[in-house]
């Protein structure tokens, strides 16, 4: 902090300052807007009938008892709405040849996982809808289910018989092929005869993201647009995908993610439940709400991870790694989720971590099973890679009888070698692993702990001491767009921001990212307060509503600050440039003679100046603007990073 006690508030840097979060007042007092809070006139409630079988043919659905239950308004099956329900899409077919099963929101004739929706009940209350859902009689012919990843790879039992295979796609990154390193098989052969080869197989277990707020969707079809509130990380993507698959024009759909209670990747999905609620609202012409139970959330919300990792590491006798070969089997579950196929692929640039390997090959086979679908969860493909390579480095150290950190240092990129292009082809701009590790060792008391460990070993102490170390690096931001295009990803990686300078001097910032606990309202306010020199308290951050934020790619992959925050910076700079023209006119000065600091345009060498709030007011009443200037200093920016 460079601020002094008597400096004006706006002169104190906000970025880096500890601020109480703007979000907290409402969260602490229960004045929140969760999707499930919404009640609308005449609103109906949706309950799902879900399959108890992992794989079965639907032979008959009898909805007559449910239809005659009290206050039931509608019951429908997948077959009855097959033409209008739309389909769920994957935005990341990792190869052009990817096998992708058709994914109707409500199963039509076959279910592929336990928890899949087979019929929908709409009633006046949630309790009545659930009661009636229990009256829906579904006849199933159970089919063989494939549940194990390695069994799936054999293609004996098929998750989707119509595809003829469980294989979704095979994807490879080969350093020799792309020119970023040598041939890995040669390195392994060389190490087998004259070095060290370590072969291991690790399991990345399946897990459930388990956000605290269950997913909830409200559809209001009254009015000119259809409004969908959803507990989602990705309102913009939901709107686009609804428009793309249901035939409703994008301009007729408004999606709002209000307060969202956690996501962890689990809410970046476009879900059957959203499509079904949208459909129910449109069919009935009345507002409808669906809120899942926790059991439904655990069964049907996407899961994370689930890989087998087969690894072959080649090194010299001294421990310098000469090659790494990665063979993954990745479980997509029953369907290709929005970015499900791409998640394991993201590991391709991370298995080499912070190390210099001569050669590298990454192979992944994405497979379908009759389990809940799998998609992004916290780090999405990248922590899986870190886990594997860091365990391998420990194995190498054990083989050599060396300190695990020493082996890592032997292999990592030295600080003087940056910028460095890795064997996977990614350029790291900067780093100093020597300094960071030295500091970590000091903070941890590493040498003392090693000595204590040694003492306990020697004295055969009943309590032994284990020391774990790991390095971690991650590419984040999921951009630039041109690289995402090369990877067959359907969307871009840019982010958008608008800044509205209100007449009273207050500022509205509209961001295309969509927070769910991160505190964007606070951080974005700090960015804008610093850039424009306005008080932190005067900045309002608006988000998560496609009618307010018309351009955005939402929040996932650690992209919000690095991409969305930079868009805010650039929009603020455009505001300043527009304001400079007006300020020069107000001050009867040349733009070149103005300097902008702490929210004020001052004429160099004089006491004369105007604040940006005064410029905002002058632009609002627009009584005396320079020739050709539009009566607004609002600005927008869309930012697309150069590299990951």
């Amino acid at each position: 902090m460079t601020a002094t006690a008597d400096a004006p508030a706006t002169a104190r840097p906000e970025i880096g300052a500890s601020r109480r979060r703007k979000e907290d007042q409402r969260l602490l007092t229960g004045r929140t807007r969760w999707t499930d809070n919404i009640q609308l006139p005449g609103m109906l409630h949706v309950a799902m009938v879900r399959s108890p079988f992992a794989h079965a043919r639907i032979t008959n659905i009898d909805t007559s008892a449910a239809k005659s239950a009290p206050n039931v308004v509608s019951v429908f099956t997948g077959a009855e709405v097959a033409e209008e329900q739309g389909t769920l899409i994957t935005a990341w077919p990792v190869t052009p040849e990817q096998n992708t099963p058709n994914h109707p929101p409500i199963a039509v004739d076959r279910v592929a996982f336990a928890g899949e929706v087979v019929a929908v009940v709409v009633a006046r209350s949630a309790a009545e809808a659930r009661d009636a859902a229990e009256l829906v009689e579904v006849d199933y012919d159970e089919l063989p289910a494939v549940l194990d990843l390695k069994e799936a790879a054999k293609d004996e039992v098929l998750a989707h018989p119509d595809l003829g295979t469980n294989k979704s796609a095979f994807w490879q990154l080969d350093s020799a092929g792309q020119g970023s390193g040598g041939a890995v098989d040669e390195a392994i052969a060389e190490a087998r005869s004259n070095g060290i080869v370590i072969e291991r197989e690790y399991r990345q277990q399946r897990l459930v993201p388990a956000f605290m707020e269950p997913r909830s969707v409200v559809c209001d079809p009254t009015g000119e647009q259809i409004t969908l509130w959803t507990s989602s990380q990705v309102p913009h993507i939901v709107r686009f995908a609804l428009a793309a698959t249901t035939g409703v024009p994008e301009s007729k759909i408004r999606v709002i993610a209000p307060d969202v209670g956690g996501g962890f990747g689990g809410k970046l999905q476009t879900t059957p439940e959203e499509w079904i609620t949208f459909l129910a609202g449109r069919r009935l012409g009345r507002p409808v709400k669906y809120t899942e139970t926790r059991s439904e959330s655990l069964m049907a919300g996407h899961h994370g991870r689930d890989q087998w990792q087969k690894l072959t590491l080649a090194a010299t006798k001294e421990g310098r790694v000469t090659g790494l070969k990665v063979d993954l089997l990745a479980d997509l579950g029953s369907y290709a989720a929005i970015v499900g196929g791409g998640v394991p692929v993201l590991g391709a640039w991370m298995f080499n971590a912070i190390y210099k390997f001569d050669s590298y090959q990454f192979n992944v086979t994405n497979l379908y099973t009759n389990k809940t679908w799998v998609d992004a969860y916290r780090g999405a493909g990248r922590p899986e890679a870190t886990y594997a390579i860091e365990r391998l480095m420990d194995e190498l150290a054990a083989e050599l009888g060396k300190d695990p950190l020493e082996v890592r240092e032997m292999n990592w990129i030295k600080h003087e070698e940056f910028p460095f292009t890795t064997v996977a082809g990614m350029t790291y701009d900067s780093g100093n692993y020597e300094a960071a590790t030295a500091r970590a060792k000091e903070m941890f008391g590493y040498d003392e702990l090693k000595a204590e460990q040694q003492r306990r070993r020697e004295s055969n102490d009943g309590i032994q001491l284990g020391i774990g170390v790991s390095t971690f690096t991650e590419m984040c931001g999921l951009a630039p767009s041109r690289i995402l295009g090369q990877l067959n990803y359907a969307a871009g990686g840019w982010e958008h921001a608008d800044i509205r300078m209100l007449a009273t001097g207050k500022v509205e910032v509209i961001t295309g990212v969509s927070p769910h606990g991160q505190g964007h309202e606070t951080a974005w306010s700090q960015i804008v307060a610093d850039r424009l020199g306005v008080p932190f308290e005067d900045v309002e951050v608006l988000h998560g509503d496609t009618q307010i934020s018309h351009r955005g790619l939402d929040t996932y992959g650690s992209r919000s600050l690095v991409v969305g925050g930079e868009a805010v910076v650039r929009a603020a700079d455009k505001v300043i440039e527009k304001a400079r023209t007006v300020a020069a006119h107000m001050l009867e000065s040349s733009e070149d003679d103005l300097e902008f600091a702490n929210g004020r345009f001052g004429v160099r060498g004089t006491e004369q100046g105007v604040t940006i709030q005064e410029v905002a007011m002058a632009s609002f009443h627009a009584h005396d603007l320079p020739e050709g200037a539009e009566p607004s200093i609002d600005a927008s920016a869309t930012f697309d990073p150069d590299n990951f």
Partner: protein
Amino acid sequence: MTRISVNVDGSSYTDEVEPRMLLVHYLRERLGKVGTVVGCDTSNCGACTVHLDGRSVKSCNVLAVQADGHEVKTIEGLADGDELHPVQKAFRECHALQCGYCTPGMIMQAVDLLQEKPDPSEEEIRHGLEGNLCRCTGYHNIVRAVQMAAGQEVTDVPTFEGSAS
């Protein structure tokens, strides 16, 4: 339908409810007290915690009819006007929340804990909050917030500009 009279956050309500209606649904759907939320429907997560006659209960595990003739306090009735309750204040000071979904239940449980044990040890705090799940914070700052609310010295939390207020 059964007629019940309940005092919630200082106001009296009389309603006809289905005997099976849960207290949390009565609060949210009939009274609009949506500050109290449902996380799991199974009494595992504690997000729906409120006070019944001054003691914490998980309102997804209490029938509305069981609250007949009793007093309920929710997160919305905890602050004194604009003045936050000391536990709410401490949660804010210690950055003890992120998405905030568990926060109402966590705070109501913490208030009950401090009524029972005004000067709890860290272990007693962790034990006292074991029925409340948080997915974002890792609990560390929540424990610190309860310590701060108890008037204990708390050092390893962020300090804010003007934290004294």
